[in-house]
């Protein structure tokens, strides 16, 4: 078998959105499929509404836990502004998948700054190879909006070379026992949304 190059995924979002759990699932799926894995996030201020990033890498041999700027194969943004903020992390041809959600940063809440009005337009102008997903709506449909992070995993699952059974097995173990079915449904809805030809009507609110 030829050497599998390292794949780079950058996850971005806001403290409290479940970015860390999503990274946990990704890491264990890749490990279960026999890859070397490295993952990195910064703790400490993550629960206080700050910007959160998590780096996830897998391949035959991964040297470092950080995705260098300009090399991400996939940027997975759990919030629209946090997608726009990190487009320069993508490599040429990389994919941006973002959640159609706006969360006001604290300067906006304090009336000291404004949230970009046409954030969807700005994202598409900055990175045409973009897919928008309404992960919160899909998760709500599955049973709880708290599963939006798992719906996001479903939405990006077709871009990664992992088997559906592995995803499901890891999600079963990673989420609270009572929420397994809801999370698996959120994953399925996310995956189904990814195969729709376009996401017209998907815009942030």
């Amino acid at each position, binding site marked *: 078998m030829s050497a599998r190059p390292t794949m780079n995924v950058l996850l971005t979002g*806001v*403290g409290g959105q479940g970015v*860390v*759990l999503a990274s*946990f699932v990704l*890491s*264990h799926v890749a*490990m*279960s499929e026999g890859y*070397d*894995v*490295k*993952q*990195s*996030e*910064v*703790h*400490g*201020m993550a*629960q*206080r*509404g*700050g910007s959160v990033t998590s780096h996830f890498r897998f391949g035959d041999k*991964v*040297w*470092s*836990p*950080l995705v*260098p*700027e*300009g*090399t991400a194969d996939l940027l997975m943004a759990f919030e629209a*502004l*946090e997608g*726009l*903020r990190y*487009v*320069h992390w*993508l*490599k*040429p041809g990389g994919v941006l998948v973002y959640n159609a959600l706006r969360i*006001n*940063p*604290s*300067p*906006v*809440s*304090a*009336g*000291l*700054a*404004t*949230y*970009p009005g046409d954030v969807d337009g*700005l994202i598409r102008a*900055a*990175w045409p190879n973009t897919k928008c997903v309404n992960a919160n709506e899909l998760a709500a449909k599955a049973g709880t909006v708290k599963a939006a992070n798992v719906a996001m995993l479903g939405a990006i699952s077709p871009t990664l070379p992992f088997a559906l059974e592995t995803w499901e097995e*890891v999600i079963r*173990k*990673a989420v609270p026992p009572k929420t397994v079915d809801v999370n698996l449904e959120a994953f399925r809805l996310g995956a189904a949304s990814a195969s729709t030809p376009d996401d017209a009507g998907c815009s942030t609110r």
Partner: protein
Amino acid sequence: MASKIETAEAVEILSGNEAIARGAWEAGIRLAAAYPGTPSTEILEAMAGYEGVYCEWSPNEKVAMEVGVGASMAGGRALVCMKHVGLNVAADPFFSSSYVGLEAGLVVVSADDPGMHSSQDEQDNRNYARFARVPVLEPSDSGEAKEFMVAAYELSERFDTPVMFRTTTRTSHSKSLVTMGERVETEPVTEVRRDWNKYLMMPQNAIARHRIVEQRARDVAEYAETCPFNRVEMGDTRVGIITSGAIYGYAREALPDASYLKLGMTYPLPAKLIADFRSKVDKLYVVEELDPFLEEAVRLLGVKVDGGKELNTLLGELDARSVARSLASAGVPGVNPDLLGDLAPQAADLPGRPPTFCPGCSHRGLFVVLKKLRVFVSGDIGCYTMGALPPYSAVHCSTCMGASISMAHGMAKVLEPPAADAKPDLRKKVVGVIGDSTFFHSGITSLMNVAYNGGKTLSIIVDNSTTAMTGGQENPGTGKTLLGEPSAVVDVPALCAALGIKRVTTIDPYDMAETERVLREELAADEASVVIAKAPCVLQFKIRKSVYQVDAELCIGCKRCLQAGCGALNLYTDPNGDLKVEISATDCAGCGVCSQLCRQDAIVRPVSAEGKGS
């Protein structure tokens, strides 16, 4: 969230911190002590999950270090963990521990924070290792963290020395694969061996010990020549790289085919191994983060270095791209071209997303009041440091743990007293603000000093019954230990009184009118006083009261409520083009600060279906 998933093979994905705990457990340690501090905190949290190890949160790093020294002197392997600035606090016992040595292994984790993700400074704590003549191991990922940790105890006992285990944020907080091992069972400790010459550092003994310490450094340097963690990996001999820690991974990505001397032990250094490596490569580069610690040592050996700190900055973190670009700029061949491309333009003028007080946070109302009073606030280290950020902008200095009260005291002592006929001016008042855990850490002596030396400053202790900034650890005021045992609770008002403070008042910081009244009264007092703003952390204790709503008919869009700086509030323009504020029902925790700010009575708590207003 589950921290790990059991797999059939004994391989798990662990963070560096979890791997350190695992390694210490496998090494058979009997005691672990720490004070929480990013990026080190999770080591003890993971450690507490293992059987057979006594674990504690000590009130500060100096105490933790002394607890560890005591355990190892008694014959139990011990682990002490702290963030880089914690070692400043623990430096005194750290240096002494180098002199006295130990009966059983002692490992001190220093988790450095290049880039200051959650710190007030950048320090390369390898300097402490050299300063105290203590060997330092530096893992580059979680797998090495576990492996090195087990070996650190053998090294410690073999050379009768504490070992520094130095991580950075990227080794502590990154996750990678770790192969599990079994725990080594160590002998039970039945008595404390007495060795006056070794363990009692009066000058006559210390003079003799210093000679032993310097000889030990030479002995460990000799061992470094064959230490399996100092590894040569020959590749393209045009370029040789000396590196360590997480930087090794960045360098391997930047220069995949170069030759490497990867140092797992970065003090003391293997002189012969380095000279031998130099002789096999055309050009030698030292690639390291923060200080030129290795580079200077290599140059002092008389070894020619073709590039070091002038290529990779002293400031902040490195990564594979920065290393690739710096080496390419120096004309080094073989740099990975994928790391040299131009980046897509970054979107300009986006609003930042700094951390802020959680909706419902008990600190919010206090800082709104402090801003209104216009006093100078001497701050400290904790969530409440965010009171410095807009819209509060109500903390004016913050340096290190425990400094708020002592600095306020120093300021007040040099401030000219107002003229007898001057109007009272609160802008000339200095107030210290400190959290409960930080007060226990190193604020108590500062307050004692205010009382003893006749200070007149106001100290506000914001007591939310947890160590909030690092994720909600227990402390001497919470009534529980790290291992979940019920414990003694510090009586803060009684403690302040015992220190000699006569004016001690406890307030509810959610009641802003009362908070303002009490603060004005205490600021007017002509003696030292303490105000304890006591309300539990809403995040840690999951406190949610019924939510507030905005009556859009009454809201005039004046933005006064936005002074609360709360993420649950949102300014919008209604269909008539009028500015209004709305409150997110999912984010609001029902604290009522915005409601107290509103002068239109537009922010109300609707009576719920069950008829409960709160």
